[in-house]
């Protein structure tokens, strides 16, 4: 997807939440307040468009904690570039869900 692509408000929030370190679906739900039936399709769409990447947790780690393995998401380079472009369209997005850099500052 090109950097100047227009994302919906929901997709932009989900992208910003993942960028802010909420790297799995339930965490994004908690952060954004969006319901489960919205968050997972939005993440799948972002993944399809190459803005985020998913990766399953190693089975050994999950087994050690006696829990099912989890699927984690992270932004791709294209996703980061898109997010920078999206800030101009949704200026409050960064303040609503602060990124790790902002939190540190």
């Amino acid at each position, binding site marked *: 997807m090109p950097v100047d692509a227009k994302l919906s408000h929901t997709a932009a929030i989900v992208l910003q939440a993942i960028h802010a370190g909420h790297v*799995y*679906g*339930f965490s994004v*739900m*908690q*952060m*954004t*307040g*969006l*319901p*489960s*039936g*919205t*968050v*997972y*399709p939005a993440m*799948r769409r972002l*993944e*399809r*468009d*190459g803005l985020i*990447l*998913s990766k*399953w947790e190693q089975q050994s780690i999950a087994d050690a904690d006696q*829990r*099912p*393995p*989890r*699927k984690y998401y992270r932004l791709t380079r294209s996703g980061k570039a898109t997010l920078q472009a999206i800030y101009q369209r949704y200026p409050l997005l960064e303040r609503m869900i602060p990124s790790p850099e902002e939190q540190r500052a």
Partner: protein
Amino acid sequence: MSLFRLYSAALARMNLRAASLFVPRRDRADWIAEWTAELYHLCHGCAGGAPGAGPFAFSLGAFRDAFWIRCERLRSATRPVLQSGSAPRCGLVLTAFAAIGFLACLSLPRARTALLPIHALPPADLVMISSAGYAGVQSPSIPLENYQEWRTDTDKLFSQIAWYHPSVRNVYVMHQRTARLSIALASANLLGVLGVPGGGSPARSPNGARLILSRAAWRSWYHSDPNLVGRTASIDGRPVPIAGVLPDDDNEQLPGGMEAWLLEDEHALGQLPPQARGFVFARIRGSAFPAPRGGVRIMTETRAGVTPSFKCISVAWLARQPTSNFFFALLLACMALPATTALPLGDYRDRLALSVRARRWVFLALKFVLVLAVVYPTSIALAWGPSLPGSTAVFLQVATAFLALLFGFRWILEDQRRRCPQCLRLLSNPARVGQASCNFLSWNGTELFCDRGHGLLHIPELATSWFSTQRWLCLDSSWLCLFPETRAPSPGMV
């Protein structure tokens, strides 16, 4: 964990299993694993205050996920078909127009008979006699006195001859109601001449009269009463037994739009004024009177020094006329086509496989077939659907079919020239190159390219001996990175 939370988690797991059944089998395991992992953390971690964060509410969201996956699948499956400019979409649109044309034609009774004459194809020796030529086919033109003379004088020409005169009469119908019906006062042998089997019930009034209803009148005035035949109808106070109901096919081939036929003997018909005009049908004798050539044969008779001519028009020919008109319009359109657009489709020899070229020709042929399938029923519906005089309907059909075919064929050729020969999608992004007035011997023209990077189309502005027609240039795979539609899908594509 409280009992309530355990119960809620178990219920949520059941919901997730149920929702997973709606997910396509290929993705089911992945989705179940993600849902289950999230549910585990939801149940064992802090639920927080997020909406839909309870296990049960979370599991209901899984149904929305499954619904979304199904919609995405459907969308991606139909995208190539519905994409603007794609060959399947072009075929679908033409098919839809053809279906609308056929439905319109079938919904109009007269147009339906014209479209499907096979069901009602009349006997080959049946002719209609008209004094006004083809224009008299839809309006009564033969006076009663002519018919009465021909009954006795034309034994050598016709084996049978029948006449009917359109009129409007008051008929007493069911439930104390009187209706004004279009009734044909007809000779008793009309059904026999037309070749209608049976001819109805043998019941007759004391003077031999009997009434035959059209199917439409039987439906609307007698509510499709199955026991109607044999009962008596009152026509202007005169009781007449109802002898039968005429099938739609036979009814629609008779001009005048009659709702009923009052079959009477010759004596009763003789009570009408001698100048009362009507329609005449006859069966020609093969030995004395060969079948009308080209559908029409002229019959003359000399009376009191005057020799009027009558046209014997084959009813079978009349039934086939809409198809003949269409083929005539098709011939005219084919002859006129080269005057409106160039026929060559361009130079496409550049590295095109035989299968690709064959597919392109099949697509072209399919478009021609579909345009014919659109125009044929539409022209019939327009011309023969409304009750127009015969010659007007013929003119209207030929004119509409000719114009629609001419512009349809022109569109087909132009559309074909603007498509990529490999994917058959419409080419886009036209770019004008050069200016003929400045660089006469250089390349001037327009270039279009395929969105999928299959190649470029060069259209010369001025046809020259070295570049007379449009030329296709194939692009190899090294160009594909420039075309976004050919990018490889992302690894996580659903």
